């Protein structure tokens, strides 16, 4: 087991979680909880994959996946922002809907080959000792897109004027409204942006990181892990990136360790085909629970900066937060 290769693959796997988590951060910073990430990712995954299968163009697939992700999120936006439905229930509905619809639309796509996005090596950066081969050698273009997205998202939220408006809408919508900021408009925009990024995350699975369509096993809970990551990350894209790559590495390790006969001279209890591998496969999900406990504990909600208006519909002229 070559550790460099495992970590490089971990970065690739983490990129999927990264897109989804950053998208959810945008939506939640605007005050809208969207638990439908899993469903949006599946819709993006199936839309991107089927487009690539039928046109042979993975780039077109990527764009279609993002559009579809945004459209599915728009449904959540209308229901929760205008119709003031419970954001938890609407998000759950979005997951059910996305899962079922993706299975219906993906019928017959299993085992179909599709053109995938290219892998690229960055000439000089790949030669950096240790980090170079992990981060910059033969990675999918989407991995590099992830590298760009994180600082951009952080800068946008924390250091720009539109980012200030975004935070205002999530923290104190009434005050933002009084300042002339369009609360509804911004919430729509960021919920849809979250969907676009979730669609991208889904397509990143089917068109780049682990190509293929495997029904609802394609995403296999990674949308929910992304939602958990947001709490761990305290709504900060950079912490989300760290968490995403960490989880990606864990996922990869779990796959790779099952192919090794001995670890440090000890016979590997987790060899593929043995029933103890199931304990290994529990790990990421248990880890999310631990991480969310840490995230919840490290400070009470106010101090870590969960958006104050998260989950609360905004009604103009009504007394609220």
């Amino acid at each position, binding site marked *: 087991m070559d550790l460099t290769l495992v970590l490089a693959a971990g970065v690739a796997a983490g990129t999927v979680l990264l897109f989804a988590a950053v998208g959810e951060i945008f939506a939640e910073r605007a005050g809208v909880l969207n638990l439908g990430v899993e469903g949006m990712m599946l819709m993006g995954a199936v839309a991107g994959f089927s487009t690539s299968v039928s046109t042979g163009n993975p780039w077109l697939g990527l764009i279609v996946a993002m559009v579809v992700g945004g459209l599915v999120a728009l449904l959540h936006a209308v229901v929760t922002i205008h119709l003031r*439905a419970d954001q938890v229930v609407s998000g759950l*509905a979005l997951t059910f809907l996305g899962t079922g619809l993706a299975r219906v639309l993906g019928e017959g796509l299993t085992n179909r080959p599709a053109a995938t996005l290219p892998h690229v090596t960055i000439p000089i950066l790949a030669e950096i000792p240790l980090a170079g081969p992990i981060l910059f050698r033969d990675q999918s273009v989407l991995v590099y897109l992830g590298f760009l997205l994180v600082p951009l998202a952080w800068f946008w939220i924390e250091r720009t004027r539109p980012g200030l408006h975004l935070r205002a809408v999530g923290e104190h919508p009434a005050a933002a409204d009084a300042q002339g900021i369009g609360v509804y408009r911004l919430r729509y925009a960021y919920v849809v942006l979250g969907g676009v990024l979730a669609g991208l995350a889904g397509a990143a699975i089917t068109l780049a990181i682990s190509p293929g369509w495997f029904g609802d096993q394609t995403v296999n809970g990674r949308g929910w892990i992304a939602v*958990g990551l947001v709490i761990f990350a305290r709504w900060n894209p950079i912490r989300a990136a760290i968490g995403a790559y960490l989880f990606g590495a864990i996922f990869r390790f779990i796959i790779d360790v099952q192919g090794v006969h001995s670890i440090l001279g000890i016979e590997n209890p987790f060899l593929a085909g043995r029933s103890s591998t*199931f304990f290994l496969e529990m790990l990421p999900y248990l880890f999310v629970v631990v991480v969310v406990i840490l995230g919840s504990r490290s400070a009470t909600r106010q101090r870590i900066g969960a958006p104050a208006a998260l989950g609360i519909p905004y009604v103009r002229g009504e007394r609220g937060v």
Partner: protein
Amino acid sequence: MRIRLEPRVDPARWLSAAATIGAVIVALVISGAIIAFVGGDPILSYLHILNASFGSVGVLSDTLVTATPLILTGLACALAFRMRLWNIGAEGQFLLGAWGASAVVLAGLLPPGTPAIVYLPLMAVAGMLAGAFWGLIPGLLRARLGVNEIISTLMLNYVALFWLQFWVFGPWSESGFQQTKAFPREAWLPRLSDFSAAVPGLGGLTVHLGLVFGLIAAGILWLILERSRWGYEIRLIGDSPRAARYAGIDIARNVIVVFAVSGALAGLAGMSEVAGSVHRLQDRISPGYGFTAIIIAYLAKFHPGRVVIAAILFGALILAGREIQPSGVPAMIQGIILFALIVADTLVRYRLRFEGRAPAAPAPTPPPGATASGAGGPAG
């Protein structure tokens, strides 16, 4: 154009019922359109579902068998949701319950030939305890550490599945297959067909005692929620946590207890499934009962009696949907129904008013032509 929502002061009772039924119909129409879009025949599909679930006494019995775990998991969700506690983990609690009940049989502690009167109560208790334990974890985490129960219950679903797979593929595997050996007859819940010697008409009917468990549980839960002090506390916490706190109700304790009871109900569903229907533990023991339960609880508006009705309808959908192509159709219909329900909910609580783009002179009463109230007509 702007849309304004005006709260209905006193929505009529029939409006809520009409909106629920209307939502289901709208959802079926939308689903039908999607089925047609992907090349299926929606009318044939729906007729098939009706026929294969209610068409004869035999299939009706199978529908009730499928509805049995849905009643119990639906009640589990309804109880938790009534307190606005999002237990999304009924699936995992169901699996743990199935595992716990199976452990009674497969651990080899009871000698062969142990009578059913010993086996079945032990299995039920073990299943409920295992489910309650799996519910206690997120309950304690929520009550003591403020951990979001949606994430923890969801993650524990995956953990429960891998736990079950470990036993089914490993220690309890029947010669390498993904299932355990069949339980002895003493560990089977009685079925209607068991009495066919006395009553000839019952031959082949698979309805088992688990259905009675579900109905009794629904009755008890109704008594608790509507007629007891504890139920009043649960409803008060759900409707207004602040008022509950002022009233001196111990919210943390209620979170823990409700999660444990909710988990026990889902665990009993798991026991009923292995002992009443499958008669062994296997990898694919649940086609997502615990997730469908969420929609059932919502459709029933958390009312135990309506959970039973909703569970039978969804049991029909799952049972008959197995043969429908494409295979995701039942899951898709469930998602669309839930969406339609929450939209219908808004239309019951609010009156929609569509206003023109010129708000310069704020019109206190929009022209009658611009008024549209969905799903209902006049009320309130």
